[in-house]
């Protein structure tokens, strides 16, 4: 299935926006006076257009980092920049949420009371820069590209979970974001549906390159999707090992059985396993 996209599918040269720079970020939660350190002096540089996979056991503090970038939480110290502009830092502990950084949530956050089409049209409707007709035109177009034609007037509760995830990604892309933040979005899906979602996501990515900050605990998912894996230590959260995935894009499922994939898997596995074992023994709760 060679397609036009193959020449520079994986290259980041044509992407100019969306570089994230996380410097020395610390986040301490303070319930009942007993300080809990969730993120410990964490520094990550993500070039524009990269798919950066943040891998770590559940509940290790990855989501805290994502929430800080999205602007849902403040940070205790350190700074986060997007394209050189300060999102949050010493003078401004909490970033403003905005449509340049859109989160795709763990359990999905499509509004169940709006049809798929209205969900996708939501962002531009709120911005109010385009006419209603233009927004719907664009939304229908993007739905067709993502194979969602025919589900426009269904409510999210009426379509399969796989379709729902696709709608959510399209809803995010409608706003031309610089960064997409994924919070383990495929966690609840069964392995078959998950595999479709991975290819669909890459396909969408090849068309609209944006920086992707993707949290997961699934190593296979991480290697299949990512340019780079950042393996985090278990609580407090801090980068432990960085693995470059040099498998060329575009990728499809034959990648999964390739030798290079196995090699990278083995390289990353020990570190991940060690952290998982720690969490497993500590009886860490999930989610």
């Amino acid at each position, binding site marked *: 299935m060679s397609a036009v996209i193959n020449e520079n599918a994986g290259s980041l040269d044509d992407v100019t926006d969306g570089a994230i720079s996380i410097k020395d970020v610390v986040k301490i939660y303070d319930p009942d006076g007993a300080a809990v350190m969730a993120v410990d002096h964490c520094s990550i540089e993500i070039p524009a257009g990269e798919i950066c996979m943040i891998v770590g056991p559940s509940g290790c503090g990855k989501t805290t980092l994502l929430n800080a970038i999205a602007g849902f939480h403040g940070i205790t110290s350190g700074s986060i920049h997007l394209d050189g502009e300060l999102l949050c830092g010493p003078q401004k502990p909490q970033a403003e949420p905005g449509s340049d950084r859109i989160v795709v949530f763990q359990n999905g956050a499509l509004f169940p009371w709006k049809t798929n089409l209205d969900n996708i049209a939501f962002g531009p409707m709120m911005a109010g820069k385009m006419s209603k007709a233009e927004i719907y035109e664009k939304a229908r177009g993007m739905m067709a590209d993502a194979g969602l034609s025919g589900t426009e007037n269904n409510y999210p509760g009426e379509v*399969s979970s796989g379709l729902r995830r696709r709608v959510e990604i399209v809803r995010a892309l409608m706003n031309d974001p610089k960064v997409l933040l994924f919070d383990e979005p495929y*966690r609840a899906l069964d392995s*078959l549906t998950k595999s479709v979602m991975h290819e669909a996501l890459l396909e969408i990515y090849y068309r609209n390159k944006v920086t992707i900050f993707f949290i997961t*605990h699934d190593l296979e998912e991480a290697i299949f999707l990512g340019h780079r894996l950042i393996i985090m230590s278990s609580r407090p959260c801090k980068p432990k090992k960085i693995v470059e995935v040099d498998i060329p894009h575009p990728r499809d*499922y034959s990648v999964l059985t390739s030798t290079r994939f196995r090699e990278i898997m*083995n390289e990353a596995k020990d570190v991940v396993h060690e952290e998982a074992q720690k969490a497993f023994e500590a009886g860490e709760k999930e989610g």
Partner: protein
Amino acid sequence: MNTNTQDSAKPRTASFAQSSSEIVANNISKSYGAGPFAKQVVSNCSFSIESNKLTVMIGPSGCGKSTLIQLIAGFESPDKGKITMNGKPITGPGKDRLVLFQESALFPWMTTYDNIMYGPRARGEDNSEAAELAEFLLNKVGLEAFRDKYPQQLSGGMQRRAELARAMINKPEVMILDEPFRGLDNMSKELMWEYYAGLYEEDRNTNFFVTTDIDEAIFLADRLLIMTNLPTSTRAVIEIDIPRPRRIDDIGNNARANEIKKEVMTLLHEEAMKSFSGGSKAAADFLDAYSKRAG
């Protein structure tokens, strides 16, 4: 009863005397609903769960595997055909066949210990022997420190281990597991595979395991039953001859495992081809997944 020599029985596991039970389903069918809304879920389905083997059943989600479990466990009975255990027809639920459910079915109002002790107590066997066995199992699944905790205080992995212990204390002749590790994160899941395989390898009782995950199926199975899409029946049986004990790290690089994986994928792909007009949400996703994998 048959005593298998390869069983390296430690003194205390002696209480888990090995049994050799098998279940045979012969040409069974089952429908739900009536009139124009009748939906056939199982159609002329035959298979056997051989004694002292771990049989894994794999098929697309929503293909009727859970119905088969209801039938084998005896919670429901087939419309046609019959299911026998050691030659005797199954008429209702019984403690010789124990089911571990998809979502954890630990009783939330009982502590770990009380949950494990439920079976013996329910049958009026609340004696020192049962208590001793419960202690032994708590120890075995590594939950001594959590004996007085309620299920909600345990992690997902711990809950599954507690459930294994709750089942094992009843010394079932056949253990039936319905996607028991679904919903766990991948890392806990892999650890649970090894853990569960270890438990199985210790006493090698008859186990029947249902899943949608190809990797899980191949890692665990002695025999693999591949099911068709709705209405379900047996499509193929593959004997998995990878030596035990198996380790996750080894199986990843095992050429034979890869070969089997390809075979299974092809078979399931053909299944998808036949069933695309089914119209169910699960079938649509399944079709999608495999048409892409095949591409």
